């Protein structure tokens, strides 16, 4: 068995994983990143709109500062976030953006003088200060008080990841691409690396490390309709859950983005609305301003997605064989704006829809987009449950997003958390020695070898892995989507338990030789159904509405009983997760209150009921 030693093993070579590796390498430690795909194809590259940081250079961002960013983020999270972490994050985001600029990002810059912008379909004028000329500018995003989202056209994730990976190459950090971690090596207390499968040859490999970091991104692919890449199927969360001791935080927290295109669910950025695009219904009329007079199209994502779904349910969607949808209108932004600031959007519309967004409307509807859920860590990025295990980026529940993440806060999180967690790992490694227990390693490997053998031989049964995955995805889509209720959730849990039982009986159709893709999925399918169950069961238990979690049978946000975070662990042999809860935040800088958008019926900590349901 090939065994590779390193100080830091980053499972994931997206923005978060690479940022951690850079920090470790800069401090003189060995770092290796693993990735299912070549590093630059990681899903970070698909992020379009931008990254939030309170620089306050542009006219509409004047007066912005970390404090304002803090308030926006906590409100956005519907008070689900850990406020100490949010504070850490907002304070260091500006520095992170500048550092990325220093490494080579061609951020869009302030152009002094008069210019116009759109909001709610109407044109306004702004004047950029000449003394700010050439500083990093920002655009508007949902749920923010200021224009704070720094961007490079609509390829921000792409430029960030390419620049990050350039830095990785410069520092000589090793990236093993097409290597997938399939289990952590641990003795119940200390994590010492991972067992991985090479996706070029199909061989298993052992990575031994003093510090292991899960930076595997989100896992939207447990849903049928998602903006996520096909590799976002939860590998990192699964291996954490499989340990039995590491919990997932808020598994029920799944964000739906308002504008996935129909039918392929490819995202068109929030920047479309940030730059003044509007949502129209079947009559080609705006509707968001009626539900949200203040923020209209630019309320937070959870809110916009809900109103869109609500509006479609009122029969005002556009009918199609792929289900009802709504229109996104960016025509009025004009050709120049679209061709320079929304280029990817234009290409996506041309290539995948065969339409021209300069003259035509874009068919959209909400699709799963972001997993606020993730490996629960403390503020240093250290995972609960195992020493030597860390997590960062979308894979982690660090938890600055609570029950809803703001657009642009996630790219920023990967870079800021990557840096902070990297620093903490460096501290952790100073003088830390670990003993590799051959027995533990052997048994971890044997377990995986056994699994593979049984899948190939069909000893467990002959269930079709694709069938199972499809059923699981449908179940979540149908019953654990944007609006949730107890009856459906219970049904979802029941059905998923059945699917889970079937997932134990998967057998391969093909021979499983080499980098066989069927085997790849078969190795993950039980884990994926586990994640689905955590999502559904967590949602069933949370009898309130908060952020993206909207219960039709419990419409109020209930700070008295549910101002907390779900922690889901999975005991071996169970077919349901064990749920525990911890307070959402120890530090309270901003006490719970109204968000200023969305449903505002709240049961306060004292049990008082305020606000009213607007729908």
């Amino acid at each position: 068995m090939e065994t590779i030693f390193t100080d830091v093993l980053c499972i994931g070579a997206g923005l978060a994983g690479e940022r951690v590796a850079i920090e470790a390498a800069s401090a003189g430690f060995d770092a290796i990143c693993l990735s299912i795909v070549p590093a630059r194809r990681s899903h970070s590259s698909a992020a379009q709109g931008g990254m939030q940081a309170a620089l306050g250079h542009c006219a509409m961002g004047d007066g912005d500062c970390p404090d304002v960013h803090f308030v926006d983020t906590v409100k956005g999270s519907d008070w689900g976030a850990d406020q100490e972490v949010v504070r850490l994050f907002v304070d260091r985001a500006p520095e992170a953006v500048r550092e990325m600029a220093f490494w080579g990002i061609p951020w869009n810059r302030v152009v002094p003088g008069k210019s116009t912008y759109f909001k709610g379909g109407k044109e306004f004028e702004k004047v950029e200060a000449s003394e700010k000329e050439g500083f990093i500018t920002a655009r508007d995003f949902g749920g923010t008080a200021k224009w704070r989202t720094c961007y490079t056209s609509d390829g921000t994730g792409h430029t960030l990841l390419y620049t990050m990976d350039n830095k990785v190459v410069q520092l000589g950090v090793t990236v093993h691409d097409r290597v997938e971690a399939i289990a952590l090596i641990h003795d119940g207390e200390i994590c010492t690396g991972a067992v991985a499968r090479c996706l070029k040859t199909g061989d298993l490999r052992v990575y031994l490390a003093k510090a292991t970091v899960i930076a595997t991104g989100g896992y939207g692919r447990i849903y049928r309709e998602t903006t996520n890449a096909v590799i976002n199927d939860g590998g990192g969360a699964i291996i954490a859950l499989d340990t039995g001791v590491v919990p997932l935080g808020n598994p029920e927290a799944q964000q739906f983005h308002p504008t996935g295109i129909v039918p392929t669910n490819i995202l068109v950025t929030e920047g479309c609305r940030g730059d003044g695009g509007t949502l129209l219904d079947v009559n080609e009329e705006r509707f968001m301003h009626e539900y949200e007079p203040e923020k209209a199209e630019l309320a937070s994502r959870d809110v916009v997605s809900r109103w869109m779904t609500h509006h479609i349910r009122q029969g005002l969607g556009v009918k199609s064989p792929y289900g009802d949808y709504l229109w996104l209108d960016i025509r009025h932004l004009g050709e120049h704006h679209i061709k320079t600031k929304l280029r990817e959007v234009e290409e996506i519309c041309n290539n995948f829809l065969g339409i021209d967004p300069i003259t035509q409307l874009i068919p959209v509807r909400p699709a799963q987009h972001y997993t606020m859920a993730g490996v629960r860590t403390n503020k240093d990025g250290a995972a609960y449950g195992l020493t030597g295990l860390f997590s960062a980026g979308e894979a982690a529940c660090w938890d600055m997003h609570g029950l809803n993440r703001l657009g642009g806060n996630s790219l920023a999180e990967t870079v800021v958390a990557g840096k902070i967690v990297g620093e903490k790992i460096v501290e952790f490694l100073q003088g830390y020695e670990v003993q590799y227990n051959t027995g533990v390693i052997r048994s971890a490997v044997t377990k995986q070898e056994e699994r593979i053998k049984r899948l190939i031989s069909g000893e467990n049964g002959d269930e079709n892995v694709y069938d199972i995955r499809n059923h699981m995805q449908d179940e979540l889509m149908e019953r654990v989507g944007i609006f949730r209720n107890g009856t459906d959730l219970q049904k979802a849990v029941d059905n998923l338990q059945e699917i889970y039982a079937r997932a134990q009986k998967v057998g391969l159709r093909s021979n499983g030789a080499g980098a066989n893709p069927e085997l790849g999925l078969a190795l993950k399918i039980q884990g994926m159904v586990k994640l689905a169950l955590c999502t559904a069961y967590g949602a069933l238990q949370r009898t309130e509405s908060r952020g993206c979690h909207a219960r039709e049978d419990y419409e109020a946000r209930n700070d008295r009983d549910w101002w907390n975070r779900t922690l889901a662990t999975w005991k071996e042999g169970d077919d349901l997760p064990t749920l525990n809860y911890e307070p959402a935040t120890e530090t309270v800088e901003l006490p719970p209150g109204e968000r200023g958008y969305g449903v505002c019926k709240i049961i306060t900590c004292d049990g008082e009921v305020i606000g009213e349901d607007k729908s």
Partner: protein
Amino acid sequence: MARRLKFNIFRYNPQDPDSSPHTDTFFLEETESMSLFIALNQIREEQDSSLQFDFCCRAGICGACAIMINGKPGLACHTLTDELPEEITLMPLPIFKLIGDLSVDTGTWFRAMYEKVESWVHTDETFDPNTDEGRMDNALAEEIYELERCIECGCCVAACGTANMREDFVGAVAMNRIARFMMDPRDERTDKEYFEIIGTDEGIFGCMGLLGCEDVCPKHLPLQDQLGILRRKMGWSAVKQLFRFKS
């Protein structure tokens, strides 16, 4: 009328001793706005679960899915079947090492490329977290972004006659990368240093101007223009050196 599509797909799994290179044929009923992403997955899920191919973002953004589609390199995820004839032949990209069926190892090739062209900003300055970022003209930022949009799909390399004949040729993608850094004032490398990297027959002077690259790039990068500019710059740089040495 829905067409019945015939797919001829190159098959070979080097890891399987029983496998040898051959072509398999699959049939599919065409559905509305079917892309090769949908088609290939359908084949894998319903007809042959061992079929290897790569997709990641399935949105034309990550560059994972480049294959030879009826002889031309292109992104499978954004190729709709209705743009293609009834018979569709799919082959892996040439030049890159085959992993299996349609899947090739672009990661290793590109990493070597970054190392060769030193694809990062070279500067002697150190980052100071406490000062404002350096200023840059927005128009310049946009120009850099234009070249930065490359998704490293490898199509330009696959379509390049030179790269196909000569293993050591760096390809348009690398030259575009160099052009991107030359444009960036943050990179302090001189023309002479760039020349060292790219002023050879493996670099710009090996390019024969066949423009296969320009014509297949799915992101429509201005490769022709950049190659022209680069050849001139590097050509002049050599001439200047000549006179400097003489005097």
